[in-house]
């Protein structure tokens, strides 16, 4: 793996459930089952997958909201997997998170100014500095300073999203993890947001980890994409390459499921059944029960991640 600004090595997050029956072994949810990737400085890296695939878990684990069960997280080469309070504080200044865009990420009891002030207060900044910084940030995301005194419910969807972005950028991070930042926005607002995020990336030299279930958005926004299924990465490649020649059957079905594309190179592939729950993952390759190209070996042996063409990795027995 190339050295990147943010790297995760074999990250695992397992949840052990409460015992439901006395003599039965407690169930385990393998939300993340060994995820490794390396994000280069200045890049926009996309993480794509459907619900339950573990992408949000990955995001929360990287920023320290969750403790990983196994694996390491490296920032600029330093191990940041388990940090003490002071170190964590420093780390928080460098790597931040934009939450999923429901207005739940803004405290309904706080004004915009209060919401933005809190992180700066926590960092020990002085009042005057804080005020200046907030005004600057409002400018940066294109919001009028009159909105500082408003409450979240008084803002429009687009405005709330900008406040959410500001909240993440106000600490001047180097890496921003965006968890479904545009998912529930109307098309026109979504376009505004993506343009804004691109603009900010240039101005502030940011690196993005962009998490979404919308392949079109991720393809547009990101340089490289990793596809996740049930806690694992099944394919990883440069974004245009992924679109042009998706190798993993899951990626192929994801692409073919995008509605309204008339230039479907692939016949519409409709998967059977629902996504299995992470509580009882299938044996062998996790995807095999729904895979339209499964072979005998797929149900018993787990495939390894291999580089099929330059910088294009897949985890599948077909290759």
């Amino acid at each position, binding site marked *: 793996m190339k050295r990147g600004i943010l790297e995760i090595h074999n990250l695992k997050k397992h949840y052990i459930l409460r015992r439901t029956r006395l003599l039965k072994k407690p169930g385990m949810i393998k939300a993340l089952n060994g995820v490794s990737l390396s994000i280069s400085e200045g890049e926009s890296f996309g993480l794509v997958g459907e619900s339950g695939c573990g992408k949000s878990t990955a995001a*929360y684990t990287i*920023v*320290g*909201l969750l403790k990983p069960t196994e694996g390491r997280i490296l920032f600029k080469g330093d191990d940041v997997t388990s940090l003490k309070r002071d170190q*964590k*504080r420093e780390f*928080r*200044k460098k790597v*931040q*998170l934009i*939450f*999923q865009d*429901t207005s*739940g*990420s*803004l*405290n*309904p*009891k*706080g004004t915009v100014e209060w*919401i933005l002030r*809190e*992180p700066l*207060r*926590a*960092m020990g900044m002085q009042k005057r500095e804080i005020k200046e910084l907030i005004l600057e940030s409002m400018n940066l995301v294109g919001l009028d300073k009159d909105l500082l005194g408003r409450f979240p419910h008084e803002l429009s969807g687009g405005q709330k999203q900008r406040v959410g972005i500001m*909240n993440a950028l*106000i*600490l001047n991070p180097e890496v921003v993890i965006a968890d479904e930042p545009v998912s529930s926005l109307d098309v026109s607002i979504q376009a505004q947001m993506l343009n804004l995020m691109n603009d900010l990336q240039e101005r502030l030299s940011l690196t993005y980890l962009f998490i979404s279930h919308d392949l079109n958005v991720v393809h547009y926004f990101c340089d490289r994409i990793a596809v996740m299924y049930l806690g694992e990465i099944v394919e990883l490649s440069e974004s245009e390459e992924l679109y042009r020649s998706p190798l993993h059957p899951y990626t192929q079905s994801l692409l073919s499921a995008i509605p309204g594309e008339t230039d479907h190179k692939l016949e519409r592939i409709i998967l059977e059944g629902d996504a299995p729950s992470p509580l009882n993952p299938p044996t062998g390759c996790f995807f095999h029960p729904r895979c339209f190209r499964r072979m005998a070996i797929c149900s018993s042996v787990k495939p390894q991640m291999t580089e099929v063409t330059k910088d294009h990795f897949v985890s599948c027995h077909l290759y």
Partner: protein
Amino acid sequence: MDKRSINLRIGIVLISLLFSMMIVSLFYTPFSVTEINREERFSPPSVRHLLGTDNFGRDVLSRIMKASQTAFFVGLVAVSIGTLFGVTIGAVSGYFGGIVDEIIMRFIDAMMAFPSILLALMFVSVFGVGLRNTIVAIGIMSIPSFARITRSGFVQYKELDYVRSAKVRGVSNLRIMLRHILPNVLSPIVVAASMGFSNAVLAEAALSYLGLGIQPPNPSWGRMLSESQVFITVSPWYAIAPGIFITLLVLGFNFLGDGIRDMREKRK
């Protein structure tokens, strides 16, 4: 549709009336509370003695007024104790979870398994009677419900994105609990406090009625009830008056609590 619910209005009216009476009693009562007047024993309600006199000829109204101070005082302090400790315990338990939560909740569950009056009774029988112990006992007995409500609020809110957001931005746990979560949980706590007040008034009345609460010379509606029982055939007003006032105060706070809850529902 009124903006303010009818419950809220009734509650506020009742409480204000009784509160005003209490304030007035701090400076003035129609008659002395302790002055004995043998000629006027057991006189029925009249212009002079609006609520009649008791077995010592003391003006019942004046005694009621003075006793209202006790009712409010005990209610206020006891609920404050209950709220302060209950909310703190509940917040810590709900926010941090894990083994701390388990242990605390088992204690709370144990406390809630007893009828609260019994707990208060146990306390005063161990530590003695009197104003201070009554307040402490009632305070302790109200801790569990505050703890429960607060805990459930914190458990609910700590998973919300804006709390996670504060954490990720480096805000300290204490500050998150106080300034990010608590304001959102305040509403049910206030309702519980209102109900708690009325429970406290009832509890004090019950304890004092049994002779285990407020002791003479401190006045108390509850004790007036027990003292007047014997004379109920001779001067019923002496027994009815404290009962009515207890009811009014309790109702007042109950209506207030309901009213606040109604307002919250409406806002949703």
